[in-house]
């Protein structure tokens, strides 16, 4: 086997390993997009139920009307979920799809927090969602999610604090406290994402090593057969 033969064969093996790694990663990204598509639908139904249970009716004089929260859950919820669902169906695995999903997921947290009157317990949805986003193993989506939730808390905390904190006069820096805990959580999650991708790459490289070993053994045995062919089988008596 000449050096150029060896280089060509080695490059082919490395290329196949790279393709396997990319295919594995694409499969994870696409399947996670589809997973979030179902979550978007589920959250929409859940938000409508919350709105119906929590504040189904309002009274204006003697007239009972459906509370604005129900319409918010139905229409704003549909608006929030429609783009991520469309992208997950039409462009699964695309980088924009997962960033749109990350942003929408945080806006869903905002919506649910609003519908429950700023209940602190509903803020757990933010942290749960960050955990779900790790399924992508793509850490930049966590940055998108963090920015969206921080900006949401800043703006809503400023113009409508009751909607996000459940009180009318929070400290001006309250959004920073919430953002700090999110930043605290994503540091660990980013490390998990990076390690996970490294493991996937290592898996592909292990495959390449085994392939190289087999290819090398096969090539050497082929050379030996040419140099020293096996003796002819004795004729049957």
């Amino acid at each position: 086997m000449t050096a150029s033969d060896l280089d060509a064969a080695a490059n082919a093996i490395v290329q196949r390993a790279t393709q396997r790694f990319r295919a594995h990663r694409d499969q994870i990204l696409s399947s996670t997009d589809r997973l979030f598509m179902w979550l978007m639908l589920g959250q929409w139904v859940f938000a409508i139920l919350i709105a119906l249970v929590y504040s189904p009716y309002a009274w204006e004089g003697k007239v009972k009307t459906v509370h604005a929260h129900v319409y918010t859950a139905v229409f704003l919820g549909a608006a929030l979920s429609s783009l991520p669902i469309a992208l997950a169906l039409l462009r699964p695995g695309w980088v924009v799809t997962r960033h749109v999903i990350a942003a929408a997921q945080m806006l869903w947290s905002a919506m649910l927090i609003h519908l429950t009157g700023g209940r602190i317990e509903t803020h757990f949805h933010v942290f749960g969602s960050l955990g779900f986003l790790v399924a992508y193993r793509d850490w930049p989506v966590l940055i998108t999610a963090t920015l969206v939730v921080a900006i949401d808390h800043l703006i809503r905390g400023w113009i409508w604090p009751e909607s996000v904190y459940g009180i009318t006069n929070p400290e001006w820096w309250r959004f920073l406290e919430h953002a700090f805990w999110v930043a605290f959580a994503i540091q660990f999650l980013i490390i998990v994402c990076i390690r996970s991708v490294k493991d996937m790459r290592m898996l592909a490289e292990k495959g390449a090593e085994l392939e190289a070993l087999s290819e090398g053994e096969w090539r050497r045995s082929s050379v030996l057969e040419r140099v020293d062919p096996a003796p002819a089988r004795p004729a049957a008596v």
Partner: protein
Amino acid sequence: MTRSSTPGSPAGYDRIGIADADGAIRYLSKSEFENLPVAERVRLLMGGKLQFFQGDRQLTAREALKGA
């Protein structure tokens, strides 16, 4: 130094020897070997120039890689 004779047993390696062109053997730890670019590892494996060890015990390449 003994060569393992248990085919298929997951052993794994902790050290490798690379035979240079002049016959000298250069030793690397497992992590040093894994930090080599994958293309270089593939070339070395294809060239059959690697010896795998677990402690003092020499392993076959297949045994070493399957157990790694």
